[in-house]
């Protein structure tokens, strides 16, 4: 019994210490934003990797989801004669909720995993130690560009995802459900408010930051060997996905509960 309590105590303390180290890591990374030197080339590469090269997967995800959403709302709305609201609900559903969350999760899958695996491999093969001996701060050279690129690029990805999701709804709505194209688009545009877009971009920025932060943290603190790299990657993706969904709830509450 005592031993069990002691074990629980040790776990709790260990967990808290880990959380403290994580918070210190995140804080230190952010302070590098205002302390030179800055590595512009690294930032450009990260923007390309995280933003541009994520476009295909984000576009496809949003397209299919927007289409499916239109079908569901039509079928569901049919039960009480409200099938005409498809354009409005697709728009609000994509922009407020599905766009940011789906893009966030796809970024967690595509970007978090690759950051974690790359940094963990660098850790394991002493490349991060080598950076230090070349008097280059890994936080500045490796972590900051990725954090910054994700925080800047993911909101744009979310914007693109929102639009393509609406496009998916429009394709299904006009092609399968008999909506008139002009009316569909007008209903969509009239219905969306600036706050909807603002929440979408804000979520994108937060989700992007969280996705990159988890990749960097798990990568930089990776254990040894191939197993360490595998663990870091798995941990990073799971942590990023959970953090994104939790942050989504908090942000939705902050923007729309009133």
């Amino acid at each position, binding site marked *: 019994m005592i031993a069990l309590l002691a074990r629980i105590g040790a776990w709790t303390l260990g967990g808290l210490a880990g959380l403290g180290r994580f918070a210190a890591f995140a804080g230190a990374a952010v302070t590098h934003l205002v302390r030179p030197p800055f590595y512009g080339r690294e930032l450009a590469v990260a923007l390309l990797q995280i933003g541009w090269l994520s476009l295909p997967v984000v576009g496809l995800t949003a397209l299919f989801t927007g289409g499916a959403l239109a079908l569901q709302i039509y079928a569901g709305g049919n039960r009480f004669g409200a099938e005409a609201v498809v354009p409005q609900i697709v728009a609000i559903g994509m922009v407020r909720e599905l766009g940011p969350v789906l893009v966030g999760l796809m970024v967690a899958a595509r970007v978090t995993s690759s950051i974690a695996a*790359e940094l963990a491999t660098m850790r394991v*093969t*002493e*490349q991060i*130690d*080598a950076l*230090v*001996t070349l*008097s*280059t701060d890994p936080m500045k050279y490796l972590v900051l560009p990725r954090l910054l690129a994700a925080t800047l690029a993911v909101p744009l990805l979310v914007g693109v995802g929102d639009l393509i999701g609406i496009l998916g709804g429009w394709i299904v709505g006009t092609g399968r459900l008999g909506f008139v194209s002009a009316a569909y688009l007008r209903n969509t545009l009239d219905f969306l408010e600036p706050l909807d877009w603002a929440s979408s971009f804000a979520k994108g920025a937060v989700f992007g930051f969280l996705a990159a932060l988890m990749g960097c943290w798990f990568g930089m603190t990776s254990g040894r060997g191939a197993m360490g790299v595998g663990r870091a990657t798995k941990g990073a993706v799971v942590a990023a996905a959970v953090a994104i969904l939790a942050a989504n709830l908090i942000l939705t509450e902050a923007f729309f509960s009133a």
Partner: protein
Amino acid sequence: MSAPAIETRALRKTFGDLRVLDGIDLAVAPGESLVVIGGSGTGKSVLLKCILGLLQPDGGTVRIEGRSRAALAPRDFLDRVGMLFQGGALFDSLPVWQNVAFRHLRDGMARVEARERAIETLGRVGLPPRTADLYPAELSGGMQKRAALARAIAAEPAFLFCDEPTAGLDPILAGVINRLIRDSVDRLGATAITITHDLTTVRTVADRVALLDGGRIRWMGPAAAIDHSGDAHVEQFVAGSDRGPISTLR
């Protein structure tokens, strides 16, 4: 007398219950070349990493030019360091020349000039210009080691650390590398610590030799003395014998 370039006092490092360094006292004079020998797994690489600050020692101090290493700004130490890792540790996402020119590129040297300099440095470790545009994974093990040495010496460091520079090289290239390290000390006035198992390296590179065993410096003396040191550890090491004070189980 001026302070030693590199000095450790009572340096200790343990991993779990494995006591790897157990009170290391070393002093390397400015412009001196120290070679550290000792059995595999006795903590030579760990010693270098503790000196560089890549590993946090559990006790003892490291001083650079008389000042505590932990308190030094980059320009006082790391900016002047060249380190060759035992495993090379080349950046595998960069082509070889960008590895070698890493410091120069980071400090804003024009890419054309940085590339030319990198190719020249690669030449000094016996790598032909065509290797410059390859990626580290496309080089053989010995070529990677030499490219990593090129990266270490590219910015003419004042402190040169080499972890087994000739491991995996043929004797001819090993000779080239040994002379290169010696040259950094003689011509550029670098202070060097080299780890090796290679007795030729000991004889060509060392001013002084330290033998590490059981977490301590067992013997330290001038390079010329290793053949008649009168020390059982050194004699066993030089003879390559399985009988003597150095355990073969480690």
